[in-house]
């Protein structure tokens, strides 16, 4: 039965899949991670702030994001981003936003909610004394946060942040619903064009597995190194 399959198609289309699709996937992952962590950290600081309005707003944002399916969030932003852009630029009509930018905003805003919770736990794991020690040295809030608390929190949470990023990497495949040519999108185009669903989807699964599994093994090793006795 296996003779009916054309495994050579993988060799023939791999350059396209990786050059077009995987590049998109990795770029999106890297940028969404960076933006997500930055925005997530800001959200975490807001959630921990003593101003009620600030912390309530941040909690509300995080809770809404965390209780909504990513697919729905992707649809939301697909329609919202042009309006948001128009509003921010002071234009009266929605602006034209490309698929890449739209999905980047989506993933940044969505993953920020998850990064926020990780960073919040990280900040809370730093003893309050560290904050006081910073103030005692005459540092301001932002200096203490930026130079003392956040670096430690970040370091403690590095493995969890990276694990979340691996999840983000897998999640980016959902841009499929916007017909974007990410890795999965590229493969499914070929699959549908040539009627090679079995070969292409199996190949996609193997590639995703290899990358995610490899990365999470690295994270595990990093975690073991970070938890050496005496730290």
């Amino acid at each position, binding site marked *: 039965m296996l003779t009916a399959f054309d495994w050579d198609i993988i060799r023939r289309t791999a350059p396209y899949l990786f050059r077009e699709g995987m*590049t*998109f996937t990795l*770029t999106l992952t890297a*940028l969404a991670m*960076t933006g997500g962590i*930055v*925005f997530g950290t800001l959200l975490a600081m807001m959630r921990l702030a003593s101003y009620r*309005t*600030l912390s309530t*707003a941040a909690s509300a944002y995080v809770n*809404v994001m*965390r*209780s*909504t*399916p*990513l697919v*729905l969030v992707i*649809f*939301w932003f697909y*329609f919202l981003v042009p309006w*948001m*852009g128009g509003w921010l630029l002071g234009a009266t009509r929605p602006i*034209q936003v*490309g698929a*890449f*930018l739209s999905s*980047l*905003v989506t993933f*940044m*805003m969505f993953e*920020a909610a*998850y990064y926020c919770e*990780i960073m919040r*736990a990280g900040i809370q*794991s730093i003893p309050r004394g560290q904050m006081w020690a910073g103030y005692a040295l005459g540092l301001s809030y932002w200096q203490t946060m930026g130079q003392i608390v956040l670096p430690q929190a970040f370091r403690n949470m590095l493995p*969890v942040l990276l*694990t*979340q990023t*691996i*999840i983000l990497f*897998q*999640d980016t495949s*959902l841009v*499929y619903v916007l*017909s*974007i*040519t990410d890795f*999965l999108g590229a493969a*499914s185009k070929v*699959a*549908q064009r040539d009627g090679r*669903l*079995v070969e292409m*989807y*199996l190949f996609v*699964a193997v590639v*995703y*597995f290899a990358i*995610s*599994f490899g990365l999470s093994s690295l994270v595990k090793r990093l975690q073991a190194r970070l938890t050496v006795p005496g730290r």
Partner: protein
Amino acid sequence: MKNCRRLVSVGLVTVCALTLVGPPAGAQEGTLKKIKETGVITLGHRDASIPFSYFDDKQSAIGYAIDLCGKIVDAVKAELKMPNLQVKLNPVTSATRIPLMANGTIDLECGSTTNNLERQKQVSFTITHFVTANRFVSKKAANLKDLNDLKGKTVVSTSGTTNIKQITELNGQKNLGITILPAKDHAEAFLMVETGRAAAFFMDDILLYSLVASSKTPAEWTISAEALSVEPYGIMLRKDDPSFKKVVDGAMAAVYKTGEINKIYAKWFLSPVPPKGVNLNVPMSDVFKHVVAKVKYNWNWGIFWQLSPDGRGTYLDTLVAGLGWTLATAMAAWVIALALGMIVGVVRTTPTRWLRRLGDAWVEVFRNVPLLVQMFLWFFVVPELLPASVGTWLKQLPRSAFYTAVVCLGLYTSARVAEQVRAGIQSLASGQRMAGIALGLTLPQTYRFILLPMAIRIVMPPLTSEFLNVIKNSAVALTIGLVELTASARSIQEFSFQVFEAFTAATLIYMALNLIVVIGMRRLERRLAVPGLIGSGQAMPMAGH
């Protein structure tokens, strides 16, 4: 509010900064580029799809969709500043239209193609230009109003259409005992009712109108008010071509906004049309009027109380049905996930090494492949790898998307549950296991009476979030055609163009579900709480959704 705005600005500024290093914004690409380079735009048309797209007696392509495509061509000319753009016409059939679009032979398909999810996987559609419904035509004298009147009777439909598929499914589901005859084309089907061999003919209503209008005795016929489904027609273009789609959508929107659509519509549906000069006399349906009106965004929260075009109730009913599928999928998957996850989680803590390895492999496989890819594997790949007869049976299973989603989500989640159960058991000091063994309990007894009861209490909070994840993840099943909550919100948006209302409603429902589950689980946790033990909150957050 101000804070919020600043916050969004911060986010957007980051995005802008980031995009500088991202891929460059494309100049002209895709179809526009191709048209520009060749100087030709090719329209696909049908030969006998009256009055949408057909040959008149001089063998030139005319019709409602052709007129609309003319407007699009004008917009393309303006966009590319090519007033002398050459327009080529290329006939297509039901079978060839999608492949010819995919391989670049035609750039627009101007006909009567139903815009549905299945096709959206292959091609793209512009704004709906007509809405038809699956109804039945019968003799007035027979006095047949709805499906119930057809119980036990014989009906006919054209083979290979979505219409015959639907009536077949409904017949099975509702146990109507209808005998369904397939006819080789519309004319033959109509003849069977005319000659009394069948009581009714199920087809797109617009086709039925045209058949009735050109029949010998139009007054003898009636078309059912009840519709089995709604079929929005759209002009097809290639998928993944945003710059071309923008021009096409823009041209259509302009036709709708200026009211030009009313003239074009009247020309083809409310006046005699060539070649025979028959007047179909089909006024614009409410659904289609809605489509036209909504091209300009108007808030309308009352949308949920309006009738949806599927003829089975309001848009609210559509949402509720979607919610039903979401819950059914999530719960069925959860049962699988809990059962398997417990077993695999326990197996990963047993002293037997090969069992542990097996459990670990299970978890790694399901954790490291994106859920969407797993969904595709179960839906598209697994049936092909099975023996042909089993595969075909699977593919033809009614509700196969539902079963696929349940299995896929169940297994995917089982790996996550297994991970939590393992962590829960291992978080119990190894002394508990020893104490059980030292009492003379067997290993299974130790698990059953000592380790699992405590582990379950410990993993309750993480399991709650896993259950919430199943509910959310079930939305991924819309990619294989399951019309769950997110998909139903999207279909409301597609039919009514009330994007924000539809998505807001879905979001609120998801949030309410979240709240209900969290409160319910808290109650359960409190009921299972062990006196004297402080609920050990999880110190480290787990990465995940």
